[in-house]
């Protein structure tokens, strides 16, 4: 553990020398117009997260347009101000402050990685602002200034791992945890280890490895995964918590080394449909993920959402695929609507009023579940999907929860 800390320290020191990516905060056109209320977006459209985070700016805008078409909120038009933090974690805090203090946004929607959320957290807490966070994450946090739109591990990762350890999922008994080196993978893995220890699995049956964020050369690690998988002790799986463009890089090497999901299934905790856009997924069929929404979710609400998105892409020349929808897009979409409903209910845009009015709100999510805000904290109750990658770069639904489980912010497995 000491070595890791030392290395981490060195890395942090080194990170300062890397040339920062550019960002441009688009000034609001009608800043002085009193007929509008502003929402801020903190999603990167450059750097390693650009390919997936960039979409969320547009989906927030799409949700705002839907609300405006129905007359806006409290008689005001919703205007979305976007920024580009360039996948540079400290920049999220700086731009977040700018959004809150200069643009005076009523609420901010932002962050993908937990490290960016942790960097924005002090800013929203100091200014008593609201951050709507659309990703499933590691939990262990309960700020009254963050609305956690997506699930903590108890209602995302653990059901998926449980499924994989069961008969139907292939009775996984050995686990290779591979993650990007930051708070989300490390916390998730910590909780998983606690969970496995409680299930009576010996520590020899798991291995933990981390790579720098943006890592792309997975040769050596995949050699090691093969070696790990071929040792005795039962069915191996990979719990993958690398993020951003490392995900397609990982899978590309996985295919080329000829490993099939039948032999070593990968549970890609951050893997979404969009990560596979540039890949031929035929040799990857069967790998898994778990989210609160999958594009193949059945039901008319999802069909409507998907057709709205593709119309929006066509009408606004959005530089992303019209046929791909991912969970954080839907979560952001839900978030904008939940905020609008709360403001409407409170009759005010003030943060304390909106927060109070949020308790108990229910929204018809495109996933097919009626999601609701809990009354004791700012978590949202979501459904759980386990998906299996198919030939068409999408995920088939292997399992989904009967209802929306109660989110548990603090994991009981954290300290075991």
């Amino acid at each position, binding site marked *: 553990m000491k070595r890791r800390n030392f290395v981490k320290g060195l890395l942090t020191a080194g990170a300062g020398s890397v040339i920062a990516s550019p960002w441009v905060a688009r000034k609001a056109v009608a800043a002085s117009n009193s007929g509008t209320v502003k929402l801020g977006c903190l999603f990167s459209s450059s750097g390693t997260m650009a*390919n997936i985070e960039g979409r969320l700016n547009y989906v927030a805008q799409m949700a705002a347009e839907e609300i405006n078409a129905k007359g806006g909120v409290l008689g005001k038009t919703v205007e979305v101000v976007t920024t580009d933090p360039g996948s540079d974690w400290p920049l999220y805090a700086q731009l977040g402050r700018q959004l809150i203090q200069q643009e005076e946004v009523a609420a901010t929607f932002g962050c993908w990685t937990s490290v960016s959320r942790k960097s924005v957290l002090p800013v929203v807490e100091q200014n008593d602002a609201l951050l709507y966070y659309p990703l499933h994450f590691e939990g262990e946090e309960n700020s009254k200034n963050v609305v956690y739109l997506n699930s903590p591990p108890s209602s995302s990762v653990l059901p998926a791992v449980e499924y994989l350890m069961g008969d139907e*999922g292939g009775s996984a008994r050995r686990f290779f945890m591979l993650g990007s080196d930051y708070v989300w993978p490390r916390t998730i893995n910590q909780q998983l280890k606690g969970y496995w220890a409680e299930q009576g699995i010996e520590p020899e049956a798991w291995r933990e490895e981390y790579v720098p964020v943006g890592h792309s050369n997975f*040769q050596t690690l995949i050699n090691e995964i*093969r*070696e790990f998988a071929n040792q005795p002790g039962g069915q191996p799986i990979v719990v993958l918590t690398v993020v951003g463009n490392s995900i397609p890089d990982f899978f590309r090497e996985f295919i080329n080394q000829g490993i099939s999901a039948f032999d070593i299934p990968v549970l890609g905790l951050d893997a979404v449909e969009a990560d596979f856009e*540039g890949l031929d997924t035929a040799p990857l069929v069967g790998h898994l993920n778990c989210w609160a929404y999958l594009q193949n979710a059945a039901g008319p609400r999802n069909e409507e959402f998907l057709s709205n998105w593709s119309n929006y892409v066509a009408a606004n020349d959005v*530089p992303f695929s019209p046929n791909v929808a991912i969970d954080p897009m839907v979560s952001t979409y839900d978030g904008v609507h939940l905020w609008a409903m709360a403001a409407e209910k409170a009759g005010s845009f003030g943060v304390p009023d909106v927060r109070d009015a949020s308790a108990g709100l229910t929204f018809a999510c495109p996933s097919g579940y009626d999601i609701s805000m809990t009354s004791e904290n700012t978590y949202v109750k979501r459904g759980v999907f386990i998906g299996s990658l198919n030939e068409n770069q999408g995920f088939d639904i292997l399992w989904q929860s009967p209802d929306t489980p109660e989110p548990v912010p603090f994991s009981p497995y954290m300290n075991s």
Partner: protein
Amino acid sequence: MARRRVDFGHLLVSFILLCAASLPALAQDRGTIIAEICSGDFGAQQSALGQLAAAGMSEDSSDATWARRIVEAFEGRELRCGNGVALITTEDGAVQAASMEPSDVDAETLAPPSVNLRLRATAASAAAILRLFIEEDAANRLSAANYIDRRREAATAPILSAALERENDAEVRAVLSTLRASLLLEDPDPANRIAAVEAIAQDATLRNRTTIAEAMRDESDADVLAAGDAAIASIDRMLQVGKILSTLYSGASYASVLFLAALGLAIIFGLMGVINLAQGELIMVGAYAAWFTQEAIRTALPALLDYYLIIAIPISFMAAALVGLLMEVIVIRRLYDRPLMTLLATWAISLLLINTVRVTIGSQNLEFHQPYYVSGGFPLVGDFIMTSNRLFAIVVAICACVTVVVLLRRSLFGMNIRAVTQNRAMAGAAGIDTRRTDMMAFSLGSGLAGLAGLALSPLYNVNPGMGTGFIVDSFMVVVLGGVGSLIGAALAAIGIGQINVIVEPIYGAVAAKVFVLLLVIVFIQWRPEGLFAPKGRR
């Protein structure tokens, strides 16, 4: 309710296992097998797939064809069950699974039975076994046999014996008999067990070592134990060799990536002294040119699609060279004596290029067709797999290195570049057009970056920001190698690549990166001019 169904399933399984050995024809009627596969109970589904695989042995050859159809429909989720009916959806409507007669039940009201990973693996194995019995063409049977060799879930010794009895092709027979021998690890006859150990040890992988080692734990026969020990020792030797080769190969492949990214910079920064921060974006331009070539070929000449990477070589080179030429003519030539200004100007150009591409094409990863020569890999020794996409990069890197060295050392153009580098005023006085040489050299460096983009497209994600990841590494390689020395850059790339690969498995990827950077810093402290100091006045 669910509990009771599972028990029933288990009863069925034992019943089937009892019958399977004695009956040559289909052990159960088709309806029962279909009911089991539709049951949603994992155990029953597994046994049904085993039954279907065994249908290959049936004397009635239509059984095998039918079983294959069912297995493929199950795998492809075309099999639908519910309300006591089972259908297979086809393009001309649904047919009943048991009889293959058309059905008027609406398939949309039924759901495919659950298919988890283990069932899929068994189904794929069963389908290959059935192909072995059905296919007329020996080549197809050989590929099926090889597939079963890798995926043995549904293979049993009796099925393989039956297949061997019917098989007349020598090559297929060889694969099948090794395969059958390896399935007899728990046979009552020790001779068969020894044969099994030997058959398994032919393929020296860690997985097979584990299989033998586990079998030896419960083994009591001394001869078998001796055979097992010998097999494990021989596998261990192969694994050791494989491991060394695999480390060398990983190092070489990483080195080739570093070298390709740094090659253009070795000319632009190394020879001309321009700190070009847009070098990474020139790589990106090359990769995008390769993508456009691919798209053009896809529409105009789809037959040549597999060769787009070769066809795109001049196109990627020219596209990046053209961008470099414009950069030189418009901006850089005015800033040769102001290096800090060049630094800022080239950074600005890099941002301009990234954002132009982002606005016009979008920031998603581009989809590249992966031709056969850059997909998959060949297992060589032990667990060492030589992956084709990395082999491609290594080959391109070597070719590019040789070409550029020859160009610089042996051609008039190369001589001009070296002359201008060593003493600009003197070269000018000797009648060399130094302006033109600068322009050409800068274009060459840019074009080489474009080539790198092409060679790296099967390895990396291609998106507007892809270049930024390469810039730090390329400067490191050029500086470490000695500014101005191509061979130095090549050696530096190999060194960094190998050290990285050796450190990574021991201390992790993060530490490897830190370690390499520290090493470079220490080295530069000790030898500021790099590995190979250029001779000449600077």
